[in-house]
């Protein structure tokens, strides 16, 4: 099996709802092992793009390949196989409300139907510990959790199968700044550890600068630039000027420059 150069390869993507065109001739590639952040204003179709990569909705035209297999034209089995290799953190968590926290995380592992129960138990407890929850929390119902805890459980579930590719949709939205920093640190550490690829959708500039290897900016119905954060900042486009170089953006940049210069070197 020849290793594909890209983990995700999107070419000529077109999405339209009626006469409203969201994406037109959009292309985006994700390298193995990197953390790629997708940013864009509201309504530029970030979530739609994510859903299309996940095979939840179909684009009008264009091709999407993940791990070299086509999501848009692949057979059911192909898609099935793909889905065991990725994990997704949905924006609102999407925990199964009928199951306890423990069962939520254990579900993908149990679905394999071959792992011994005590191994599943330890793996789930480890995942819970990774995201800063206790075994006690495992017995809770999703409806008893706070927003931040839902996020963390959802991350634990996304990582349950040790995926090679992780999608994070607004991972730090709804977390307080301390928790948010911890969460970012957690993702970075797990990323270093397990070497998975991360596709991140976020509005949070702190998260963006702390994590991203590359940033893809969605505007005018396609990816206007996809490069390292520094290069994106130097790119001349009105959206980038307002998004990154506004008051908030500058603050996040300064914080990252002082804190991250020592710690966060480029690999």
């Amino acid at each position, binding site marked *: 099996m020849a290793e594909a150069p890209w983990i995700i390869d999107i070419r000529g993507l077109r999405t339209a709802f009626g006469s409203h065109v969201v994406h037109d001739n959009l292309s985006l590639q994700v390298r193995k092992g990197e953390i790629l952040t997708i940013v864009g204003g509201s309504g530029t179709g970030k979530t739609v793009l994510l859903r299309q990569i996940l095979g939840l909705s179909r684009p009008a035209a264009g091709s999407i390949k993940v791990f070299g297999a086509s999501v848009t034209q692949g057979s059911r089995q192909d898609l099935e196989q793909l889905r065991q290799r990725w994990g997704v953190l949905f924006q609102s968590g999407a925990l199964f409300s009928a199951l306890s926290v423990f069962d939520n995380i254990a579900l993908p592992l149990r679905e394999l139907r071959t792992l*011994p129960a005590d191994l599943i138990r330890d*793996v789930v407890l480890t995942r819970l510990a990774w995201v800063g929850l*206790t075994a*006690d929390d495992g017995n809770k*119902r999703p409806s008893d959790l706070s927003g931040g805890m839902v996020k963390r459980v959802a991350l634990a579930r996304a990582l349950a199968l040790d995926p090679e590719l992780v999608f994070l949709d607004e991972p730090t939205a709804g977390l307080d700044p301390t928790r948010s920093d911890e969460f970012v640190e957690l993702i970075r550490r797990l990323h270093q550890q397990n070497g998975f690829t991360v596709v991140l959708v976020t509005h949070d500039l702190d998260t963006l600068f702390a994590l991203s290897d590359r940033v893809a900016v969605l505007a005018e119905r396609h990816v206007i630039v996809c490069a390292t954060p520094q290069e994106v900042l130097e790119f001349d486009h009105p959206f980038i000027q307002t998004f990154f170089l506004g008051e908030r953006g500058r603050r996040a940049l300064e914080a990252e420059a002082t804190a991250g210069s020592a710690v966060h070197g480029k690999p």
Partner: protein
Amino acid sequence: MQSDAQTVILDRSGQAATVRLAGAWTLPALAPRGEARQRRQALAQARADAAWDLTTIERLDSVGAQLLWQSWGRRLPERITLSPTARDMFALLAENALQPPPPPARESWAAVRRVGDAVFGIFDHIRDLLVWFGLLLLELLGLLLRPHRGPWREISAQVYRVGAQALGITALVGFLIGVVLSYLSAQQLQLFGASVYIVNLLGVAIVRELGPVLAAILVAGRSGSAITAQLGVMRVTQELDALSVMGISHAQRLVLPRVVALMIAMPLLVLWTDALALAGGMLVSAVDLQLSPAWFINALRDAVSITNFWIGFGKGALFGLLIGLVACHHGMRIEPNTESLGRGTTASVVASITSVILADAVCAVVFSELGW
């Protein structure tokens, strides 16, 4: 996927045994049936003081690491050679020492408690229903005092939804029941040469009992469940909270229009079901008993007193009230999770059909005692 290559290599030749691990120790590698168990057994053969060599492992992920960690008794062996990433992986495991999950609290006398809970649950339901009924009466009073502020548009939309859209199914079911009933009674009546009494039989049975009950059961299944599910989803999506915060009463904006609409639509649906059921009966009488439709209609006028008609009509309104109240009551009790939504909708349909039949029985006794 499954390789026959040895993944656990025990070497007992040296002074102390060494264990060398090879191949992939990842979730996909462990996923085939029995693989995890086999490897665990192989690992268990290692001596406690064995030296471990993990450098020949091709891929290690956290599930594989967990398996090794388990077999080592949750600590790193003293003599081990491994890569820095693997060491970091085990460090992460060591750092998050597992607390065993607390045993789920088990209650003695759980069965007795369940019975008690069920009894109190019933009282709770009845009290809640009465509260809703009271609120509804107050809102109705308010509607009469200030009719221009009533939710008329919503009521009319609901009448269309629970009434007009139910015309098809009630017509079909009513007609078929009329045919079946008339067909069976025709056979019996012919034996006694009392064919003409089929009009009395069908007329009273359908107008007084079957029409209202049939229509009520169909509407309970159709609209009762829809109302419960709709209110339940509004709870899940916090729309109910949003209304409360705006100071808009649930009783006025959600419950009142639905119950009033059902009370308006149900008598009309009863009338419609009656008509179709009698039409079915008339058809069978014409074919089977050679009673002409014109004669049938004339005889019907004498057979069914106006009291019977009003009883059926009034029962329609009463059943509408019951279905609406029970459906809204269950909808408002739904908790924000999917399981509760499913359970609540089922309970709502069961409760509203039961309450309709119960009310019908009470009506039958009361009206016959009154001599109507």
